[in-house]
């Protein structure tokens, strides 16, 4: 942000001011440098390398020599498997926004205030988030094993008369549902925590005032809590969408994108081409397409939904 220059001042003040200004600039540069260098080395440079490699047919061994221009991008955008991966990512985005976030919000409101033993519930709900994605994946793979003698869920299902064991992760039609359940289990705790933090900042007085005015519980939530939480909600939406678009660890562990691409995500697709087929040029191109999608969303979202925040708190 530019600070408007101050006119009509004495010369000595001017000199003092300009030396001060140089000092300020040095400080700014010094403080920004470490972060900026890391940013360049670990984000900008790899992205530029990806841009370069994305124009080659390259297997990762030796230098890239087989220049193919934009063919990789053309192939990606015409590949039905990639389109399926995009579709799956969007499905998870929609389900997360429609089910996972409201669930997290409801739980946050429940355990945030009056529930007895709320500290216990907070801990329990947040715990899945602390586990690594791989461990989570392996646990749920065990639970959802298709063989009733190995998987707990099926073992319970077969106790119900007339119910057959389900394929779950090995069933093309069920796999996305199972993955969504696991993703929800894993990540709703994070969103709940963010909502809890937001709830702490809603002054009691406002709620009390609303109650005195005769609002019931539901009206209170609708007209006081949710509007005051709106900036937190916007943050969680951003996190949730970006997380869904770039999801990798859990899906790769549980299904590897299978069976037969039924649970392919953009990141698993990229990994398969880059590190299974060793088409690193193609993989780089996929990474760039992902980056573009995420970036477009982030920028558009920041512009549209978050402007208000900047005006209020900055």
């Amino acid at each position, binding site marked *: 942000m530019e600070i408007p220059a101050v006119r009509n001042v004495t010369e000595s003040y001017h000199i003092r001011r300009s030396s001060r200004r140089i000092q300020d600039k040095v400080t700014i540069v010094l403080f920004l440098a470490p972060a900026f260098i890391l940013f360049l080395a670990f*984000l900008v440079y*790899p*992205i530029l390398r*990806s841009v370069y490699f994305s124009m080659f047919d390259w*297997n*990762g*061994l*030796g230098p890239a020599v087989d220049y193919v221009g934009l063919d990789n991008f053309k192939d990606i955008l015409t590949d039905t498997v990639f389109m399926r991966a995009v579709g799956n990512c969007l499905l998870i985005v929609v389900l997360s926004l429609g089910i996972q976030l409201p669930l997290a919000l409801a739980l946050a409101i429940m355990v945030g205030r009056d529930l007895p033993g709320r500290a216990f519930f907070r801990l329990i709900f947040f715990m899945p988030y602390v586990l690594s*994605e791989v461990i989570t994946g392996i646990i749920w793979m065990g639970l959802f*094993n*298709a*063989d009733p003698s190995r998987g707990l869920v099926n073992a319970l299902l077969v106790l119900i008369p007339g119910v057959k064991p389900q*394929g*779950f*992760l*090995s*069933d*093309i039609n069920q*796999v996305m549902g199972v993955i969504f359940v696991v993703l929800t289990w894993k990540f709703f705790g994070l969103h709940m925590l*963010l909502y809890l*933090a937001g709830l*702490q*900042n809603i*002054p009691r007085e406002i709620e009390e005032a609303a109650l005195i005015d005769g609002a019931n519980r539901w009206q209170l939530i609708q007209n006081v809590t949710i509007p005051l939480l709106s*900036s*937190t909600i916007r*943050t969680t939406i*951003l*996190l949730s969408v*970006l*997380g869904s678009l*770039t999801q*990798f660890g859990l899906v*790769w*562990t549980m*299904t590897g994108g*299978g*069976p*037969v691409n*039924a649970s392919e995500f*953009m*990141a698993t697709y*990229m*990994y398969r081409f*880059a*590190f*299974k*087929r*060793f*088409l690193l040029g193609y993989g780089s191109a996929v*990474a*760039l397409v*992902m*980056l573009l999608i*995420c*970036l477009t969303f*982030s920028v558009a979202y920041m512009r549209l939904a978050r402007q208000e*925040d900047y005006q*209020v*708190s900055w």
Partner: protein
Amino acid sequence: MRTLARPLFVLMILATLLAIASCAAPTAPPAPPPQVVQQTVVVPQTVAVPQTVAVPQTVVVPATPAPAKKVEVNWWHISTKDPGLTYWQKLADDYMATHPNVTIKITVLENEAFKTKLTTVMQSGSPPDIFQSWGGGTMVEQAKAGLLKDITANMDDAWKGSFAPGALAVYSYQGKQYGVPWDMGMVGWWYNKDLFAKAGIDKTPTTWTEFLAAVKKLKAAGITPIALGEKDSWTGMHIWSYLATRIGGQAAFEAALNRKGSFADPPFVQAGEKLKELIALDPFQPGYLGATHDEMQATFGNGKAAMELSGQWAPSVESANAADKKGVANLGMFNFPAVEGGAGAVTDVVGGGNGFAIGKNAPPEAIDFAKYLTTASAQSQMASLAMGIPVVKGSEVGLKDPNMVEVQKAFAAAKYFQLYYDQFLPSAVGDAINASVQTIFAGTATPQQAAQAIEDAAKKNMK
């Protein structure tokens, strides 16, 4: 507003950090968990060999005079379980005992993790000195990129002549040798004799029709006919590649390979159609599309399925994965049945084996150690542990396990030996075959479409 702003600020910083973390994901994907077992050998003499693994103490160690300068040899292998784990350790210990200047650093990695980690070090241009290899297309790509050491000159006639020529050839490219084999075998149908008897099958099938009839009989007896782990798509690919071999024979595959023919030619489409005949009988354990290779071995090893199409490693791996660690009591193997009217013979085999490639920076000691790993006595020990089929002449005597003898006989009888398709071809084509065959299993593509998908990948990546 002030009170609200501060926690919000913290929250937003947190959010930004997380957003950056998630944005960074596309450029740097987290690798799957490498199950690394790092073994650092401290004092070779004190390493105890567990009593369960009987390793004969008759290793002939060539003594080297005069202590030379200290050398470290990095060795990556993939035998994460016994007997292999102890066997390799013992060989390294014995070698270090007689070569005090050499330290052998072993890294044991699980199969899939190995491939991932190897790729990473390959890209940085520093491969391990000795590492697991299956030869074929992947090795050729590594050799072309100059990441492997040409050891042709280091191989004297005695060492070279000790190998079965076919096995050695898998590790050479354009007349240059880049590694050595230690095991070479074949894929076949492993079956549980007790379950076959229970279903009233008194003779192993030799034709596809008989095979399908046997599957029906097993189904009728309430036994799951075949264990399959199609999450690791290569397990099912072998059924298809064998069918293609039986229908089209050597000629069809070589035509496709030389790009004179195509993977969309009739034999490859028919292979898919025959596979569909089998799938239509629903012969696999429930959930096989999501099962791994280990789970397939466990299903078979626990006696829950009558057959599995697997390589020479099947007896040791099915028992290691079985609940009782013993596995199938009455195990047998038969060749993949012939397809009526097909060009391929019932004796043709698809197979492959294990070997060690030598990295480009390997010191001479690494090559000497590779030689030590493939002596007849080491190979004979390996054979006696039923880890695989030895490739060094004179070590077959160590082969005691009747199943291994059976594999070795079938292997020796083959006139046409084909290295696994997914290993022989460049990895881009190999994985396309695996993925396309999987679509036949799931019924999401017709045999024609699957063959065409393979051909598309071949056209692009085999120039």
